């Protein structure tokens, strides 16, 4: 069966893909749907959903919640993807070296990874952003710094298992160089688990980003879902919608990515699927 056939067999993954496509579409067309700056005060403050032309209501200052959500989608997806790419690259590099070379290289790199895993990651991210001053770059760096160890451990495990496979030994015997073995022979065999982990990491990155923004550590010039919720919490009593709708947006996006990730897992590791 083809990759798509296997992916579509998991119906919830298809639903996830649909939601994700919708979120991407909204993010891409946010400028067209809501051409105004989402920070701009466009109407009566504290309007309930549906009132005064606000689909999801307006906040304390009269900003359109729906417009903020559409523009926020861009930030969430962008940060999720970029932070994950940085983390995956770093994790693959370090994990591959540790797993392939073993010995003291593995010892040093793994102690280093373990230390990063011991550090409470969210507090570490808070610290990094607080020290570097909140901005898109610092948020991406912070998320990447706390996310790479998971990839490194995964890739290390895969490389360690592959290193002793006979086809890799055969490459040594024909005199192939280490880097070539790592990149040409082993890495292509680890791509599926890396893709699956990476896709799930995008979801986690979005959650971390929203948490940072909620605490006031987002880029102050860019609207994001977490920022909207953080700003709205003071008026929770009188304007529940300001917090509620961006939260649903986060939940749906993260859910969709998780579902797609599981679908990818099923499609890329067919044998695993058949066992359960």
């Amino acid at each position, binding site marked *: 069966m083809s990759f798509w056939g296997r992916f579509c067999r998991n119906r919830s993954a298809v639903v996830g893909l649909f939601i994700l496509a919708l979120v991407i579409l909204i993010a891409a067309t946010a400028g067209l749907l809501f051409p105004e700056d989402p920070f701009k005060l466009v109407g009566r403050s504290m309007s309930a959903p549906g009132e005064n032309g606000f689909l999801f209501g307006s906040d304390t200052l009269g900003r359109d919640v729906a417009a903020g959500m559409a523009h926020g989608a861009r930030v969430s997806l962008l940060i999720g993807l970029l932070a994950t790419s940085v983390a995956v690259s770093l994790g693959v590099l370090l994990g591959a070296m540790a797993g392939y070379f073993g010995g003291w290289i593995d010892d040093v790199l793994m102690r280093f990874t373990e230390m990063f895993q011991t550090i409470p990651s969210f507090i570490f991210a808070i610290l990094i952003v607080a020290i570097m001053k909140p901005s898109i770059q610092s948020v991406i760096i912070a998320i990447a710094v706390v996310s790479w160890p998971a990839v490194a451990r995964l890739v290390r495990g895969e490389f360690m298992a592959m290193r002793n*496979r006979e*086809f890799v*030994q*055969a490459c040594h015997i024909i*005199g192939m160089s280490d880097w070539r073995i790592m990149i040409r022979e082993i890495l292509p065999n680890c791509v599926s688990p890396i893709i699956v982990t990476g896709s799930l990491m995008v979801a986690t990155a979005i959650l971390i980003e929203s948490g940072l923004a909620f605490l006031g550590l987002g880029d102050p010039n860019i609207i994001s879902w977490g920022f909207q919720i953080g700003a709205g919490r003071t008026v929770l009593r009188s304007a529940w919608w300001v917090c509620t709708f961006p939260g649903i947006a986060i939940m749906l996006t993260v859910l969709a990515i998780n579902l797609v990730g599981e679908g990818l897992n099923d499609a890329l590791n067919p044998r695993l699927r058949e066992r359960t």
Partner: protein
Amino acid sequence: MSTNKRPEGSVTQGSAAHHAANTAAKQNQARPTFLTIDQLHVQLPTGSERSYAVDDVSYSLAPQEILCLVGESGSGKSLTARAIMGLLPEPYVHYEKGKIVFQGEDLTKVTPERMRQVRGGEISMIFQEPMTALNPVMRIGDQIDEVIRFHEKQSRRERRARALNLLDDVHLPDPPRIMSAYPHELSGGQRQRAMIAMALALEPKVLIADEPTTALDVTTQAQILRLIKELQASHDTGVLFITHDFGVVADIADRVAVMQHGKIVEIGTVDKVLNAPEHPYTQALTNAVPSLIPRAVKAVNEKPILQVNELVKTYRSGNRWFGLGKTPKQVHACDHVNVSLNEGETLGIVGESGSGKSTLARCIVRLHSSDSGEIRYRGTDLCTLDRAGMRPYRSKIQMVFQDPYASLNPRATVGRIITEGPIILGETRTAAESRAREMLELVGLDSRAYERYPHEFSGGQRQRIGLARALALKPEILVADEPVSALDVSIQAQVLDLLADIRERLRLSMVFITHDLRVAAQVCDRIAVMRLGKVVEQGPTAQLFEQANHPYTQELLDAVPGREWSRMRSQSQ
């Protein structure tokens, strides 16, 4: 005993049992049968190669009889046995029709609760891999205890006494210690003994043994086979023994059923099936079993091409954390090994698992660096060479691996797999490609295999691809590490023939690692026997087989399953 109580069967059930008993009686009038399989069909999932895993299989088992189900992988022999126990791996395969009549009761129709009582109580089973078949986090004593507890009412103390007796029966040393041990603390043979003790705890009428010695070393295998025979006699048990090994069949069976593609193609007494097989498939299989009579010696050139002198390789683990860590362990994988290989000769390295034979092979091809000693290829010590220095010698010594599935990169085409080596060593792409196609033809594959991926080939074909990869570099020495031990016996014979043919044609010298003395007898000119990292004996094959000097060599030779049968065969030929 509560297990002997039979539920009151319905009328139809009773008459079905009656009918089955009748057919059983017709089939085997000499002996009373108590387990009869009648037209059993087990279905495979749609889209499989064939529609039935077990296709219209009928046979019966008498008390005190050992019936061997023999066949190659995928023949359905294991599923036949699992069906009896109601342990088919559903939902992928499932029972479709047919009867399994045990003492007048059709096991395909009984209630789950009754089936539970039968399992372990009246029919029990042992498996191939005792490490995974035992629960890793439960003590052996508890695992035996629960069999008794879930079938009979006995006090804790009685159960313990019984378990201790059982462990003693299977000749395990120090039963109280074994009782409180976890599976990982025992050796492979000990684990299988514990499994047997567990299976025989309630004196079952039938013991199903599913390849119980396949994962064990040959000397341990011989002991376990002896044990099963001994216990079967003293407990009056009928044994259904599943194996792929005709040597084992010859040693243990009373009757034999040969299976192919889910069907029984031949069934009869062991003497008849092994020595006068009627079905062509049985004939082919028995003929494929390598003889224990060494092949004719050819003139050997006394010029050594490879010399291994005083080679030492030690693995260390533990020994850290200021003495608080694990106790440091040293494994002497190669302990001052001396062997030499003459030009055009095949040297066999024979030993059981952990003997260091694979480590020696990997040291020779410089996959592992050695601690001390030298490996001289035409006088040059390879151990002193670094990566760059080793490069010109890489092509001279090549290797063929054991596992047909792990030895080829699943993401590379066959063409890339074979051409990679020559290209690295400086050949042009076109030259490498034409050589690769030539090599594919040489090993008996269509050169169109070039564009395809490894998963499109069978195990035997993959081994041929692996051989082509090695030969593409025009080696002088081929190191073959158990190249046929993962293959079925008929495929094994083909690959061995191919190896012999190519060795002659290309005048290769070969180091052949194997645990199988039958294979060694047919392939090797000289043999070195290894044990715990040491070469205990070496000499010309025929001489070694005729008169072994070292007791361990003799032990190995005695342990080869089916020795008697082989001797009779060779005499009659």
